[in-house]
């Protein structure tokens, strides 16, 4: 691992999708660029891309069953401390595992059957408080322009990192506040300038209609809580996005945190981390994140095989979540003083080198100060 700072001058990034960094990314060819990918024979790639309903049906049945069982136990023990462990599990299944289901079904890679992907995508979008239309388009942009400042709408850790906000988001505080504001604005027919930048005009009505459905369900949960004089409806619906999202944030920050921005090689801006089986279930194998970005067509259940096939060409994975945080957190602290600082992950001798000609100092778009 080596640490790199392109420049000692303080470089101000503009993360809006309509500002100077966005224009610069387009002008310098960083936006919509051709990305590096490891060579894989077509036959092997086809095998990896093959869809199957079986793994996702098993995963979904297990996920929904655990949600029902933990919710039922939480309701049964409601009012006693015995409810706490059940809602702890329910919260992680609702507020964290929904993110991975939203993601995999959004790619259409979870199931072979399209309607199954769409059904789970809609349910998971609601649980994770994301407009299913808006976020489908923002995620497409995330894959086109991964961690390109001014282009990627899903950069979780902007530089310099706001550590208070990151910590608060382990309890969903900012995400829920801004997510709910966006949903309510969408429900009233208002889309932000950033949303209009990545949602085509013909899709905007769908975004508004989806927001109205989500807001109506949340309003019903609030009314039920008021009507019953109990927090329970909100502990079951909506609340887990606050108290149960910690796992999603914990693993999600590792995806790109502390690594390079404004590069066209996922080995430089994404991180693969070996994780325990429970986290991999909740996260649907997205710990193989370099592999996922390089080949988004590969379903979650084939990512371990893909990893074995191409690991000779990738930086060594972090060995655990803790190992990832030991690497990432000091980088965040360094970025407080110098936001150009990032971790440049070393490649094994068997890997093709980074294309340095695309990642020089002057290739980094700089926002107007």
């Amino acid at each position: 691992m080596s640490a790199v700072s392109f420049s000692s001058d303080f470089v101000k990034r503009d993360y809006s999708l309509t500002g100077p960094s966005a224009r610069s990314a387009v002008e310098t060819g960083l936006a919509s660029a051709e990305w590096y990918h490891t060579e894989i024979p077509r036959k092997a790639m086809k095998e990896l891309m093959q869809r199957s309903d079986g793994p996702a049906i098993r995963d979904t049945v297990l996920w929904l069953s655990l949600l029902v069982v933990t919710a039922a136990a939480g309701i049964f023990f409601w009012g006693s401390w015995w409810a706490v462990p059940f809602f702890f599990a329910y919260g992680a299944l609702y507020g964290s595992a929904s993110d991975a289901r939203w993601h995999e079904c959004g790619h259409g890679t979870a199931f072979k059957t399209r309607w199954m992907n769409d059904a789970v995508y809609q349910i998971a979008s609601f649980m994770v408080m994301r407009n299913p239309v808006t976020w489908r388009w923002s995620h497409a942009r995330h894959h086109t322009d991964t961690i390109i400042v001014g282009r990627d709408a899903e950069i979780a850790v902007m530089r310099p990192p706001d550590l208070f906000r990151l910590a608060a988001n382990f309890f969903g505080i900012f995400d829920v506040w801004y997510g709910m504001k966006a949903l309510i604005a969408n429900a009233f027919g208002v889309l932000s300038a950033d949303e209009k930048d990545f949602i085509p005009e013909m899709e905007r009505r769908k975004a508004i209609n989806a927001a109205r459905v989500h807001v109506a369900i949340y309003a019903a949960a609030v009314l039920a809580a008021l009507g019953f004089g109990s927090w329970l409806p909100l502990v079951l619906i909506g609340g887990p996005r606050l108290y149960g999202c910690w796992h999603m944030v914990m693993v999600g920050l590792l995806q790109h945190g502390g690594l390079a921005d404004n590069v066209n090689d996922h080995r430089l801006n994404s991180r693969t981390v070996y994780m325990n089986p429970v986290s991999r279930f909740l996260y649907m194998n997205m710990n193989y994140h370099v592999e996922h970005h390089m080949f988004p067509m590969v379903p979650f259940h084939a990512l371990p095989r893909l990893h074995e096939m191409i690991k000779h060409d990738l930086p060594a994975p972090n060995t655990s979540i803790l190992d990832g945080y030991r690497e990432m957190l000091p980088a965040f602290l360094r970025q407080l003083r110098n936001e150009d600082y990032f971790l440049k992950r070393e490649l094994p001798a068997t890997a093709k080198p980074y294309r340095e000609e695309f990642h020089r100092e002057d290739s980094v778009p700089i926002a107007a100060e």
Partner: protein
Amino acid sequence: MAGWIEACGADDVDEEDVIRFDHEGRTFAIYRSPDDEYFATDGLCTHEKIHLADGLVMDDIIECPKHNGRFNYKTGQAKGAPVCVNLKTYPVKVEGGQVFVQID
């Protein structure tokens, strides 16, 4: 009406697969369906100009390798977000073990 252009050998494309064919600065995708019929479309996804030949053929669907946008490669119809614009298709014939595409 333009003539027929020889694109590839019929055996160059596996069943339920796709290959890339470049001609005079343009790029196309040549498909072989599971029932052994051949089809041709523009080679780039209408969403972000990604080569469809790197994608996955499933029955009569081609899925873009970058954003998983789907088209019916027989009709060119876009099947939903993130692809909204249909794909242009071209007539294809197979003669003497070769695949020909009629390019306008």
